[in-house]
């Protein structure tokens, strides 16, 4: 913990506050206001949890991005998981997914109705469930970005080596760079700089952002999740913009390499192949998903259980899609804090522990 406390020191935060104020004055002198997007939901949550928004000068606007895997997942996936639970399958899931609304219900409600929903702290717990319940089918709700995909695929690799036959994956694997490309190409969205995710970057590497950053002329900084990491990252982004030298800077080099985690990349490429995916708010983005390769179809829960994924039903008044594109702040949605509350979420951004709406409701005065 001493190691962690070093990234939460007040004195260093005061230093960054002063630097950001200086950058703000420089931007004001240039007559500019810049828009930064924290791509990752964990950044969103940490920014709210540590009160970082209050450190920013008025010339710097910070908006949330699509980097919450729960939020961008279609409710149709929850519908399928509930169907499976109703058929006696053990549905194993990370905790975040339990309260996310499907088209008609949540996994929490399915559990209360007698469905076997097991919360896992790591993918390996799903494997343990399958091993300890050979009489049952276990389906792991495999939702996540590159960070989460790698350990899930490693778990699948172990399951196959051990000959575990009663486990399959309901996949909703998504890739961050194609989503960023789609966002940056949208003429209605103004983004000057990206605070790039920490854990995703540990897998894909800092260099993965270069093609997009150069194509769109946007500043990029890879930053960790500790509050001083974030302040350091924001300082780096604004400095790039003040000096008009946008580039990709890796300020989380204690974890992230330029080339990423080669072993994880190889494992993912062995089991998975790219496919198009529908993103909440962003629509269909080519090659933004990873699905199981055909030779591993027996581990695909949809094929194994003869189900198809149908688009789910969103609440038409829910503006989570606009929030995920950084077009509006959560409180600009008419449902926010009125009909949509953490204990009764109408959209995924209000329930996920990485969701923008949850972060704003939980931590910021509304």
């Amino acid at each position: 913990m001493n190691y962690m406390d070093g990234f939460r020191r007040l004195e260093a935060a005061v230093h960054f506050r002063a630097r950001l104020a200086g950058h703000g004055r420089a931007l004001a002198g240039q007559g500019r206001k810049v828009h930064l997007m924290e791509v990752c939901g964990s950044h969103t949550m940490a920014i709210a949890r540590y009160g970082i928004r209050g450190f920013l000068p008025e010339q710097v606007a910070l908006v949330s991005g699509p980097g919450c895997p729960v939020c961008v997942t279609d409710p149709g996936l929850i519908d399928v998981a509930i169907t499976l639970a109703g058929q006696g399958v053990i549905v194993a899931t990370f905790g975040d997914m339990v309260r996310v609304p499907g088209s008609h219900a949540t996994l929490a409600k399915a559990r209360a109705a007698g469905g076997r929903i097991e919360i896992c702290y790591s993918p390996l717990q799903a494997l343990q469930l399958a091993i300890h319940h050979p009489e049952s089918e276990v389906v792991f709700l495999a939702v996540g970005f590159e960070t989460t995909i790698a350990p899930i695929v490693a778990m699948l690799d172990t399951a196959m080596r051990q000959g575990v036959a009663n486990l399959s994956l309901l996949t909703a694997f998504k890739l961050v760079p194609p989503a960023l490309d789609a966002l940056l190409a949208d003429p209605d969205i103004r983004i000057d700089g990206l605070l790039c995710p920490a854990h995703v970057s540990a897998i894909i590497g800092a260099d993965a952002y270069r093609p997009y950053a150069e194509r769109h002329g946007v500043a990029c900084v890879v930053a960790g999740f500790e509050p001083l990491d974030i302040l350091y990252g924001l300082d780096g982004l604004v400095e790039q913009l003040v000096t008009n030298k946008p580039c990709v800077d890796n300020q989380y080099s204690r974890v992230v390499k330029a080339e990423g985690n080669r072993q994880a990349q190889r494992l993912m490429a062995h089991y998975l192949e790219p496919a198009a995916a529908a993103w909440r708010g962003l629509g269909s983005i080519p090659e933004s998903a990873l699905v199981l390769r055909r030779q591993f179809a027996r581990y695909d829960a949809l094929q194994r259980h003869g189900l198809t994924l149908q688009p789910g039903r969103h609440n038409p008044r829910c503006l989570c899609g606009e929030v995920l594109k950084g077009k509006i702040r959560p409180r600009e949605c008419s449902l926010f804090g009125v009909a949509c509350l953490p204990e009764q979420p109408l959209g995924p951004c209000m329930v996920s522990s990485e969701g923008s709406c949850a972060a704003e409701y939980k931590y910021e005065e509304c």
Partner: protein
Amino acid sequence: MSESILLGHGGGGRLSQQLIAREILPRFGDGPLRTLPDAAALELSSCQIRFSTDSFVVQPLEFPGGNIGDLAVHGTVNDLAVAGAVPRWLSLALILEEGLPLVTLRRVLDALQRAAHQCGVVVATGDTKVVRRGQCDGMYINTSGIGEALPGFSLGVEHLVPGDRILVSGTLGDHGMAVLSAREGLQVHNGPVSDSRPLHRLVQAVQTWAPEIRFMRDPTRGGLAAVLNEMVMGREVGLHVRESALPYAPGTKAMAEVLGLDLLHVASEGCLVLLCAAGVAEKILACWHALPEGVGAKEIGWVTQRRGRVILETSIGGERVVDLPGGELLPRIC
């Protein structure tokens, strides 16, 4: 006697009598329970009593730092203590599941006996039921308690005024994280250990300053965040808490960081939150520091005029709202 609980142990016949004679009376038969009356006859020196009840359904039954038995005593004793009362009498209702190993029951009852002795409470009445296998998780316990009110206390959140101080008697979130780590099999070197312990001595020790003590509460379910919010919700005052002052055990904090849980939302079972006039805060802290259960006591914040709001001053100097916990503690996806 068999080595596990049978349905017959709850049937009221010979097996029931054996269970009570061999397991209950040797541990709790010194007081009114000795003759197994339908109702205990109690004598109290004061007519100002406090009465509380609580049920314990913790899983697993045993966890680092305690088990369901001492937890069931501490829970009710602490509810009485934070109401400004000296705990005197306890009821004990056991709901046992068919198949519960008798050795487990004995460990739980031993812990319960030790805890009751340590708290100076007498188990005055009780009940035992047995349910079929699968109908409860091993065992459930209900305890009700009667305590005598200490003179001088006039507790209530309506007495809070801006400038009052917020004190906690020790580290936060240890019980919740210990139970969670035991339940999920998260074995960590120097990991969280439950703080399950009685608080009555901490309360009795500060009786001198009772008129200036506004409110006391133990932050169990929902943790400190729930207690603080309940205090100011809908009121004219608010609370300001300094993150850097919050006491956490290193193992507990590390586990919470790994799982992405906010320790403000995690239960303690041996921590006292006390709000008092600013002038007596230092004296209370000094008094607590002299007791083993208060050695880690800290002042963590103060009462403000920010209506109904609990604000946390973060470790880096920012500000954020302390929200009510959502209910179920759920680990994050990544």
